[in-house]
């Protein structure tokens, strides 16, 4: 990303091997470690330890109600998981939810960010607050709200309100088939987390220098051209960070599915499969194997995003 600030920085004589040589940057790095070090150690303790424990447990046939029958079985749990259509089905559902929600949220989020960015100054506060309300609601609560709106057994009103649409009748049971259940799950997820994406995009929008836009307009660029050639390229880092964060979060979706269908009609997602195996069946070994695979998927997404799309999480330093 080239902002005026970073351009100025690059123009200074310290360019090139500047960091290795400068005392100032070395002491800055040291200060950075002092400041972040304790948090880093605590993060290791609370995340690395459970991850290693899960890796270790996943190599055992380990059932909480039969601890004395625990047996080391190498990778057999992984063999069972990877050889089971239920795992691949859950993976497919999870990927589908992730791709659709992130894509729709990106478009909606961008529109909302533009609204927040451009809204008349008097309305800006109200608009921002209104947009943020869904994100402030606890996921479980929003899941129940959506469930009751659609559930025909507890008097959901959606069928009544939208019966004029083709395909929606009084008798449509949304949670009795895969397609309709997924629609509700995805819609509630989008409603809930679009504000998050729009906030990240808003910060990106704010970084686009106004003079570039003005210059483009003076040169006679249309609105669409300004958007495509000036705004979007200048906020690429913000977009990629938003996509990465949301994709990682969407991939771990649990609450909505647990509350609305509990995995019925092939709507089971990976987190729910891991939960049902570890907590429901008390099969800690098998459940840990699923959790480890889920973790690997998340790592792969992060890797693809960071390496493949060159997301720079420290992009604000402006030295890419």
């Amino acid at each position, binding site marked *: 990303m080239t902002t005026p600030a970073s351009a100025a920085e690059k123009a200074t004589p310290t360019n090139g091997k500047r960091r290795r040589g400068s005392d100032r940057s070395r002491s800055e790095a040291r200060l950075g470690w002092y400041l972040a070090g304790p948090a880093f150690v605590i993060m290791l303790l609370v995340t690395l330890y459970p991850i290693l424990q899960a890796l270790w447990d996943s190599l055992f046939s380990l059932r909480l109600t039969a601890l004395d029958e625990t047996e080391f079985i190498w990778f057999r749990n992984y063999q069972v998981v990877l050889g089971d259509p239920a795992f691949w089905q859950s993976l497919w559902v999870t990927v589908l939810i992730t791709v659709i929600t992130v894509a729709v949220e990106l478009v909606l989020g961008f529109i909302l960010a533009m609204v927040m960015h451009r809204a008349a100054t008097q309305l800006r506060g109200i608009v921002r607050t209104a947009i943020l309300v869904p994100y402030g609601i606890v996921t479980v609560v929003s899941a129940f709200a959506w469930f009751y709106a659609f559930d025909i057994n507890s008097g959901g009103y959606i069928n009544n309100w939208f019966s004029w649409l083709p395909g929606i009748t009084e008798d449509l*049971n949304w949670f009795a088939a895969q397609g309709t259940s997924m629609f509700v799950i995805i819609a509630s997820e989008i409603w809930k987390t679009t504000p998050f994406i729009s906030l990240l995009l808003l910060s990106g929008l704010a970084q686009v220098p106004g003079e570039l836009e003005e210059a483009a307009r003076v040169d006679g660029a249309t609105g669409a051209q300004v958007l495509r050639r000036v705004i979007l390229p200048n906020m690429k880092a913000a977009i990629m960070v938003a996509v990465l964060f949301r994709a990682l979060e969407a991939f771990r979706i649990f609450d909505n599915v647990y509350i609305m269908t509990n995995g*019925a009609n092939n709507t089971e997602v990976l987190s729910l499969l891991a939960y049902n195996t570890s*907590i429901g069946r008390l099969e800690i070994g098998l459940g840990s194997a699923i959790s480890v695979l889920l973790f690997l998927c998340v790592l792969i997404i992060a890797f693809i995003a960071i390496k493949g799309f060159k997301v720079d999480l420290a992009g604000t330093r402006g030295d890419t």
Partner: protein
Amino acid sequence: MRRPQAAVAVMALGLTLGLVACSGESGPPVLTWYINPDDGGQEEIAARCTEEAGGDYQIQTSLLPRDASSQREQLARRLAASDTSIDIMSLDPPFIPEMAAAGFLAPVPDDLQDTDDVVQGAVDSATWDDELVTVPFWANTQLLWYRESVAEEAGLDMDQPVTWEQIMDAAAETDTLLGVQGAKAESLTVWINALIASAGGEIITNPEAPADEVQLGLDSDAGREAAQIMSRIGQEGLAGPGFPTADENASMNLFAGDNGSFMVNWPFVYPAISDSDPDLIDDIGWTIYPQVEEGTEAATPVGGINLGVSEFSEHVDLAYQAVECIVQPENQSEYFVTNGNPPSSISAYDDEEVAEEFPMAETIRDSLDQGVPRPQTPYYNEVSIGLQETWHPPAAIDPDTTPASSAEFITAVLRDERLL
């Protein structure tokens, strides 16, 4: 400089609370009773027994989650870690064999082994490996509830036991809907078990076997008959569009609505409908659960709560003394009247107030006596979820293939070869 002060205050409060907790150690031993949510009845009984104990012990209650499987998850996790803070537990019967086989339950003393005054369904559900491992507290059963106007219109004599076929035909003829639980939940297993057992079959033929030797009885004539009934209700839409997601509450609302006709459900529906729609009560009748084969007594669903004492409790003897107090017939009949949960004690049904509040009390007692519990296996969770995976939605059941394929699936799950 407000922050540090606030932090100090919080720490001070924490320390004080800690000290208070420690100082609670003196005085009579405190027994913790993990209860399932109810209308406050168990807490009342706990207070009464604490008083009766005259200082020997004190019962304090702790609330478990709402649904039975979450209750089991919480208790199993804690017991697996030998948690000593659990003394008495309100247990849902299907999960008792799992706790017993894992050695989580302290043996029931001899003076509590006498079950002459207990309905058969509750005794069966409290037993594992021919031994009473928990103490029956209250016992639940499903009845067949019907709208008298609809039964009359269909020309059914409800004084005689009726069959599933009769009520399905009646609903089809009168263009009304059946209240049955088709949701992918425990209620589906309750229904499957009742149907198969009523047809003379068993879901598991050797429930005490280890996981890899469990034999399933699903692929049998009884299994196919059960599948036949469920698939017909699903395919002909006899239970309405809400059927694939209907739980007990949804069935009750359907039954109390304009198209209600017949419903299988627990007795909680009676006080619930009396409260919400008092005019409807005159049109509501009840009888024993429907038969699968005409002339063969139905195997009615049983549920309820049994009391278990943790093996890791520091006061096992006192806990059993407390259990003895809790399950007294007087407490059970009062619990029925105040909370609507039927007693497991036969004599508790003789209470005058019970007969007055619950005109169907006698039917409940009879139904409990012919009840057949769900499979008594330590792997109940696998079996139940496995059934729900393969028999849901009911409209998709194929009586020729579903019983066999579900048996195959559950067997593979029990051998750790498949995921659930």
